[in-house]
Structure formats: C-alpha cells, structure tokens
C-alpha cells in the first residue's frame, strides 16, 4: 500500500460536488432560457418548472460558493515570486520542457480561477436573486439581466477549462475530489511547498 496524504476534507469534497452539479445544471437550464431550447425545457419538466428549479439551484450554488470562502480564499489571495514564475512559464501547459516553479496546495492558475469564481459567482448570484425576487424594478431588472449574462460567460468558458485541467490534462488529479487522498510521493512532486509545510509542522 502506497503512502497516502489527505488533500481535501470529506466536507470539502461534498461541497465541491454540490457546487459543481448545481453549476452545471444552472448553466444547462441557462442555455435553455437563453436560446429558448424546447428540448432542455422538456428535460426539466417544462419552462415554468425549469424556472423554479433554476432559482432553487441558485440557492444551493450560492450557499455552496459561500462555504468555499472559508476553504480556499486565504490561499488564493496569497501570491509570491513563484506565482510570477508560474505565469511566465504558463504553468508548463504550453510545453513539457519548462521547469514549473514549486507550488503550494493550489497553483497560480487555480488561484486566479478561484478568485474569478468568487467575483463572477457573487455577481451571478446577486443578480439572479434580483431577477427572481424584485422583477418590478425595471432598471434593476435590465441591469441584472445584463450582469447575469456577463457572469454566465465566465462560467461557460472557465468551468470546462477547470474540468479539462483536473481530469484529462493532469491524470490523477480527479481523486482529490473523489477520495481526497493522493500518494505522498506524487504530492511531493506536485505540491512541494505544501508538503514542506506539512513536514515542517510535523517536526515541530
């Protein structure tokens, strides 16, 4: 049996999938509304029902996103010289020949992705609630509708990137959000600064 280390807590995994599933269903029903796609409406039980489901999925999404703030925000807002080097070599994604600077628990790309997720997530959630609960105010409704759709663009572009990078592009990464455990040696290579921290605190 390989030596394993826990990278994600059980609750973190649970919350990730609540966020992921609600996000995907919201995006699919969102496309249904955006282009009046009858087939998508039919899957959700007709458009009036799809509206109700879309609204309540929005509640699940918002709560789940809020909970992630306590999990990743601090790390996502911490940048150092290695992050600048990571950007300079594009994270090693454009060539396998570059040396990727040592990363902590989450890399620079993930930090930016998470910050975007929070910013556009809050944007899409607030405007969503305004559209749902206060449609009488036409100025707010028009503005919310616009912002809601701008934020939607972030999600339909960045979520597929996130899915690709965490599955096909980096084999072995998905298990972080399945069991939460990864081999110690593998982690040492991928997250050297995090492992160094763990080892340091162990010694202390």
């Amino acid at each position, binding site marked *: 049996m390989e030596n394993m280390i826990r990278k994600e807590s059980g609750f973190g995994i649970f919350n990730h999938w609540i966020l992921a599933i609600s996000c995907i269903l919201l995006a699919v029903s969102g496309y249904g509304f955006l*282009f009046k796609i009858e087939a998508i409406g039919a899957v959700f039980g007709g458009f009036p029902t799809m509206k109700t489901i879309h609204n309540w999925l929005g509640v699940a999404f918002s709560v789940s996103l809020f909970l992630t703030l306590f999990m990743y925000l601090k790390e996502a807002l911490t940048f150092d010289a290695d992050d600048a080097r990571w950007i300079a070599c594009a994270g090693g994604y454009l060539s*396998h020949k570059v040396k990727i600077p040592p990363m902590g628990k989450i890399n620079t790309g993930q930090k930016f992705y998470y910050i975007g997720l929070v910013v556009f997530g809050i944007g899409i959630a607030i405007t969503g609630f305004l559209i749902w609960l206060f449609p009488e105010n036409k100025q707010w409704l028009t503005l919310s509708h616009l912002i809601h759709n701008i934020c939607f663009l972030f999600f339909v572009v960045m979520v597929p990137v996130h899915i690709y990078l965490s599955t096909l592009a980096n084999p072995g990464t998905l298990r972080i959000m399945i069991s939460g455990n990864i081999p110690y040696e593998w982690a040492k290579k991928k997250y050297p600064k995090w492992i160094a921290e763990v080892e340091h605190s162990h010694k202390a």
Partner: protein
Amino acid sequence: MGLLITPEACIGCRGCQVACKSWNQLPAEKSTNYGTYENPKDLTPALFNKIRYMEVPSEKDPMRWLFVSQRCMHCEDAGCMKICPAPGAYYRTKEGAVAINKDKCIGCRLCSAACPFNIPRYDDKGKISKCHLCFDRIGNNMAPACAKTCPTEAIKYGPREELMAFAKKKGYEKVYGQADLGGLGALYAFRDAPKVYGMNEKPEIPESVVFWHNVLKPLSYIGLGGVVAASLLHYIAIGPHKDKDEEVK
C-alpha cells in the same frame, strides 16, 4: 396588417376600451375620478387599450384636447419577443400581431424591461397580459374590437400600405411608427411632434438588451465551443502533464 390611430379624429368616447373588455372578457375595475377624461389612469392586466387624455392649450387653439390610444404597438422588431426566455410565450401571428400564450409564460417580467412603450402588465397569477390585436378576430377576417367599434375611424384596421395611403389622403405627411423598430403594427397619424401626444420621438429597445442579444448571446456558445475545441487541441498537440517531464536537463 396593422392599426392606424388618428388622435385628432378621436372624440374620447372610449368605446374602444369597452369593446376591448367585452371581446376579451376582461373584468371591470374600480377606478377613481381624478379630474380628467382619462380613466383608468394606466393600463392594467385587464385593460389592454387606454385612451390617454391631454390638454394642449396654445394661443391659436386654447381648447385643444388630445385623445391618444395607448396599447401594444406590435413592433416588427419587438423587444419583448427578443428578451423572452420561454418559447411560445410570445409569438407572431401571420397577420403580424405580437400575441401571447399565458400557459407558456414563466412570469419573469423581462419583457416589461425590454418594451420601449411600457406595455406588458402582469395578472394576479404572475402571467403576461396585454393587447394581442384581437388575434382571434383578425385570424377570421374581422377587425379588432377597438377598431370595429370606433365611430370616427380614429382607430382603423387594415393592410399597412392602405392605412398609410389613408393617412396621406387625410393630410398627414408623416406617420409615426412607419420605420421605428422595424415598423410598428400600430401606426399613428400625428399633426405635431410625437412628444405632444405623449410618445417617444425615437422609441428604442434598451441598449443593454440589444448588446445582450447581439454580443453576449453569440459569445456564450462561441466561448463554450471555443474552450472545448481548445482543450481537445491542447490534448492532442501538447498532451497531458507527465511527471517525468518535469526533470529538465
């Protein structure tokens, strides 16, 4: 097909309001007299057509009264139809009317934000309610109830070219709504500037709605298609991350 509304010919009898309610089986609503011929004060879910009353006194004509029918304009380029997320809630009849199907309406009210004329109203079930040009009458070659009942031809129904010719014959040079929003289904013969009759000089769908329709909507599928294609390309051309490759010589 369309309507021609001539405020100068209107005598303010409001038979059109009554005929509309009668044909569409809309309930009477309690209203209060607030000292004008205008009653009720605004369109409601049970009032599709309202005569707006205005006094426009001038040196030449100290007693000029204007009666202007306010209702859905059945725009060719309709903001409501553009923004509506529910298929079939709004639809165009072959006569050119913007008709509605309450069963398909999801009650989001986006149409009321996109309408340049502030027309859509919502009933107590949260469903859209507005003039539909009596689509059930015009589909059977009958004039809409308002036009049918009008005793002075202030509201006239017919092919748009005929209506335009009629207005010209009566001495109206320009017809309001001829080219606005792709051509309105309700044309107005005005003697003065539209604003005298309480109408927008240049009615337009809100810019944000146009931007959303022309830019954001296409971007939302180009963006998704783009990243999926780019990911696929990346997988083939560069390939997944390999742990061994990290050792650079």
